[in-house]
């Protein structure tokens, strides 16, 4: 790794901000019962703010349904937000028309969890990737072919895979193809929505290494969405921990893991089964168990969203809205215990 790369990858140095999200909100209607009556709303994303720096990775973690994918779709404007701002390289893209968005769509790409559903089964790998090159405006067929070979090579696929169809490939290979497709339009930012969760365990490290190499080589920025804290800790420079549509803790990766401060982050970390075990007490490798149930979306109580499960909750946690506070440099938590 060259010196410049080392600098790019370091947790505590700063690069210019490529994407900034401010107070993002999205509520979905919640329908219940036989007549699908409107019963209330799901606060899928409830005031989310963060920044991603050039060449760096922001990890977004949290349990199923906490709003991670919705954040991704809002950023790409695949979904209209109810409130909030999205700045791409300083421009407020929230107000952009579809026409003005078009060139930006190339700059922000997404790869999905499911490498099976996200490739068109009737197109060869070559056709799929070339589509991106055409969008990029490479008209010359020869140039497109050359670029296609380069992309396949970059993601570790052989040149003759271009003429084959998705079903001929394994999950890991399809994920590589999805990454090549995302790269075809020369993006700056890639949103990775659980890109390795559907893969065989022995293949996951290959994709993690690939994403890391591409970041070093191309200076890509990632929003890396995952529920696997070990992967997030390995890949991310900063981490945002989400619960029920809100960011509960936001800090450089090492601090999230070595000095977590929010009770929810503590609970998440304590729940990861660890492979470091004791000889004597094989069975005493106790996971800390978080009790309680998530809040009822139909009757949200005021105050902290984590109050129903938090071992530290006190009466004032149940009264007032709690804001993100900076407890030490660049380390934010949303908890009444932060004074």
């Amino acid at each position: 790794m060259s010196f410049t790369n080392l600098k790019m990858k370091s947790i505590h140095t700063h690069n210019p901000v490529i994407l900034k999200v401010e107070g993002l909100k999205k509520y979905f209607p919640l329908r219940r019962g036989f007549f699908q009556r409107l019963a209330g709303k799901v606060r899928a994303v409830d005031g989310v703010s963060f920044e991603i720096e050039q060449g760096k990775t922001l990890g977004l973690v949290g349990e199923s349904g906490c709003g991670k994918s919705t954040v991704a779709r809002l950023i790409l404007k695949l979904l209209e937000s109810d409130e909030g701002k999205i700045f791409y390289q300083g421009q407020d893209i929230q107000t952009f028309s579809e026409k003005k968005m078009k060139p930006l769509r190339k700059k922000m790409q997404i790869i999905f969890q499911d490498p099976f559903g996200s490739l068109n089964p009737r197109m060869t790998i070559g056709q799929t990737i070339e589509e991106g090159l055409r969008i990029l405006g490479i008209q010359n067929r020869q140039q497109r072919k050359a670029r296609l070979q380069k992309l396949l090579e970059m993601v570790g696929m052989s040149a003759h895979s271009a003429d084959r169809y998705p079903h001929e490939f394994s999950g890991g290979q399809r994920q590589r193809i999805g990454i090549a497709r995302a790269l075809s339009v020369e993006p700056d930012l890639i949103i990775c929505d659980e890109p390795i969760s559907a893969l065989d365990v022995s293949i996951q490290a290959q994709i993690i290494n690939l994403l890391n190499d591409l970041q070093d080589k191309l200076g890509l920025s990632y929003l890396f969405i995952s529920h696997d804290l070990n992967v997030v800790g390995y890949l991310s420079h900063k981490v945002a921990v989400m619960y029920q549509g809100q960011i509960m803790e936001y800090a450089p990766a090492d601090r999230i893991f070595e000095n977590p401060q929010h009770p929810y982050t503590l609970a998440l970390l304590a729940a990861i089964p660890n492979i470091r075990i004791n000889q004597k007490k094989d069975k005493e490798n106790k996971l800390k168990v978080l009790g309680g149930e998530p809040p009822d979306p139909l009757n949200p109580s005021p105050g902290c969203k984590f109050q129903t499960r938090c071992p530290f909750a006190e009466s004032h946690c149940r009264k007032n809205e709690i804001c993100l506070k900076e407890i030490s440099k660049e380390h934010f938590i949303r908890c009444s215990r932060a004074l």
Partner: protein
Amino acid sequence: MANKTDLISVNKLKVNFRNNTEIARAVDGVSYTVRREETVCLVGESGCGKTVSALSILGLIDSPPGEIVSGEILFAGKNLLKLGEQELQRIRGNHISMVFQEPLTSLNPVFTIGDQITEAIRIHKVIAPDELYERCIQLLKDVGITAPQERFNDYPHQLSGGQRQRVMIAMALACDPELMIADEPTTALDVTVQAQILQLLKSLQRSRSMSVLYITHDLGVVANIADRVYVMYAGIIVEQAYTYQLFHHPRHPYTQGLLASLPNLSKRGQRLYSIPGTVPNPAHKPPGCPFHPRCPFAIDNCRIQCPEMCNYGNEHLARCPVLYEKNPDI
């Protein structure tokens, strides 16, 4: 620990699946035992044959396309593979039960959970109605369902994923089994809910002196719950050991590779080790050691002959003579 008696032993089990043109050797000569009051993990990647080997125990392999080619499964002195359907059903009901990965598809959506648990109890026991209700409520309590009286009349879709898995476990406990087979019961759940279910299984295993055969692909879960571990790859067992031993002195290149490839914060900046290549298709397994195309230590012989288990002592066995010759010590 070593002296507990065997509860079930699977010996040299082979199961094939046949479709019009191909034969997939899904389980290709697998042997493992579960002893009384022991939690044993069967760990391996998708498609390596974990579920098929467990379903064979319960006689639940559909034939065709499946076919149990050879082997035996001994339980209480009987070979389960030789039993008729009626006898098997008695075993399934009274001695061995199973919890599946996806609780929503294994619970019937149109019956309340109370109905389903009482049914599970009634199949195996003649019992008075009010006693039946009491027993059902007690089971729901045992698996940590709060307010069981109110939950009794809920339908599966009214419960969270973790609660549904608890109900599945309650049903599996209904017959007081000696062996519970749990097939990836937490894979669909969040880590915080997974921790609850693992804790629950551990405490039930102890309080009821059950044995548990726990199937997973997650090494973290294995480290947390298992007394002993069997590692499967492409239809065979490649390594077996006590849990501590497996994680601290893995002896098969596949196990070593898997452990080395796990990411975490402390490996930041280092390149992760990654096992090259992909998992073989069970209908086109390579000859010799099925791991040889991906193995950094492979020698010519590995491509020809599937190796035998090498014994490292203390019930630690690994199917790799190459590493054994390098370092046979314990």
